[in-house]
């Protein structure tokens, strides 16, 4: 999948297409990717919420786990219930460390006799090293480097893809199945990172550009870049690894306990389980929350949060402008006693304390297809 020049960031199979479309190319996690196209982030964001957008997410790592012990071996590294994951189903999870901190977040699907993992680009080398060292027994790990990953997101995504691959519309949220699209052997999951209905499609690298062009030829579809992907996921309340979650945050404070299924909460058996179980029982000292600024000034990552008395009680981990909300939105961590919705806080922007309130996540209702 990677086309590497002598120096500089790697190119995805869609690099030439991004340039042809006028994409503004930036280095991101070691890859040259479009932050936006000429339409701009605002238009690309609205395109995704109202119709459908095509994102190149080929920088993400695709990993295959085979072998008789693959399920038990992976469960020793993540807190998700993989044994209970049906064939063709996908789950969100994270690799934890011995303190319960998050090493990366990922998607895991059961493909019958193998598991398909999608990990973050910036973490993929570390994840693979972590798995290579930590997966015990009969397990074979293969990094898939000859496939691209395309995300088609938005309320019209299913109708568009059904024209190219009849039957794909029957997939439900978090289904992940093999599908032939325009003659290409793909693996399609009905999921994404925008809060909208849509698909992420793993496609052979040499067929990726043709599929992308075919999708863009549909009137409901336009290309969208990393900028819109970030504003969409922020409005959807989804975590960005390295910002909202990292080795210093655990799943309980990050409000991700929904991704630790009952059996795993009880049995543990993943790195840091004792700390996660303790916080599940006693409550976390701080919590990830949504933050809604009262004015129009965006509150960016790193912005300090204070209580009424002027004491520092947390910080913003992601923040910007929400085009669908029509104003600034943010998320961050605050001490547990201030995590209730509606709690008034001050965010210090360029030295000025500005009022904001703790708000429910997501900011924009998820529009997933659950059948």
């Amino acid at each position, binding site marked *: 999948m990677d086309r590497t020049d002598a120096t500089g960031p790697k190119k995805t199979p869609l690099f030439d297409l991004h340039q042809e479309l006028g994409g503004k190319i930036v280095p991101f996690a070691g890859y040259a990717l479009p*932050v*936006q196209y000429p339409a*701009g*982030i*605002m238009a690309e*964001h609205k395109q995704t919420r109202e119709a459908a957008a095509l994102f190149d997410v080929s920088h993400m790592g695709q990993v295959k786990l085979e072998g008789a012990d693959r399920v038990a071996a992976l469960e020793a590294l993540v807190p998700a219930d993989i044994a209970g994951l049906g064939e063709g189903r996908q789950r969100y999870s994270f690799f934890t460390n011995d303190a319960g901190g998050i090493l990366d977040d990922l998607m895991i699907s059961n493909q019958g006799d193998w598991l398909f993992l999608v990990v973050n680009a910036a973490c993929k080398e570390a994840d693979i090293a972590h798995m290579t060292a930590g997966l015990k027994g009969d397990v074979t790990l293969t990094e898939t480097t000859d496939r691209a990953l395309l995300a088609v997101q938005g309320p019209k995504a299913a109708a568009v893809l059904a024209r190219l691959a009849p039957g794909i519309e029957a997939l439900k949220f978090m289904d992940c199945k093999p599908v032939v699209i325009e003659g290409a052997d793909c693996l399609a999951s009905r999921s994404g990172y925008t809060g909208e209905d849509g698909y992420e499609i793993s496609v052979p690298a040499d067929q990726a550009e043709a599929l992308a062009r075919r999708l863009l030829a549909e009137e409901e579809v336009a290309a969208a870049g990393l*900028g819109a992907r*970030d*504003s969409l996921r922020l409005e959807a309340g989804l975590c960005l690894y390295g910002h909202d979650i990292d080795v210093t945050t655990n799943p309980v404070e990050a409000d991700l306990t929904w991704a630790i299924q009952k059996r795993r909460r009880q049995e543990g058996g993943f790195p840091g389980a004792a700390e996660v179980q303790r916080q599940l029982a006693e409550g976390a000292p701080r919590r990830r929350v949504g933050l809604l600024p009262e004015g*129009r*000034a*965006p509150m*960016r990552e790193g912005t300090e949060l204070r209580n009424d008395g002027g004491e520092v009680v947390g910080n913003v981990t992601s923040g*910007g*402008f929400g*085009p669908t909300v029509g104003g*600034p939105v943010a998320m961050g961590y605050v001490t547990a006693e201030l995590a209730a919705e509606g709690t008034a806080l001050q965010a210090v*922007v*360029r030295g000025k304390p500005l009022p904001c309130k703790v708000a429910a996540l997501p900011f924009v209702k998820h529009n997933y297809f659950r059948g």
Partner: protein
Amino acid sequence: MSEKRYTEDHEWVLIDGADAVIGISNHAQEQLGDIVFIDLPDVGKTLEKGKEAAVVESVKAASEIYAPADGEVLEVNEALNDEPGKVNSDPEGDGWFFKMKLSDASQVASLMDEAAYKSFIDE
């Protein structure tokens, strides 16, 4: 008679005697993308050449706007509080940022004229 000059930081300065109106160039707004908020200086604030005078926030990031000369803020474009997108649609007109009184008009005399700025951004 007023004259328009440009800084290397992509601000325009419309000079009228000892007063100047400041905004960002069309090239700058194109680079920034959709603008969603402008943190304007307070009227009466003393500005120092090369120091931060305002902050412009696009969807993606915050960028500083520097004072092109020493002086004092006389007026700010309040309309940008409700319609920051004016900086995208009319950067060198309705999208102006603030008006200032220049302490030393000679500080702006050396700025680029339109032709020089054009070749500067084409480089």
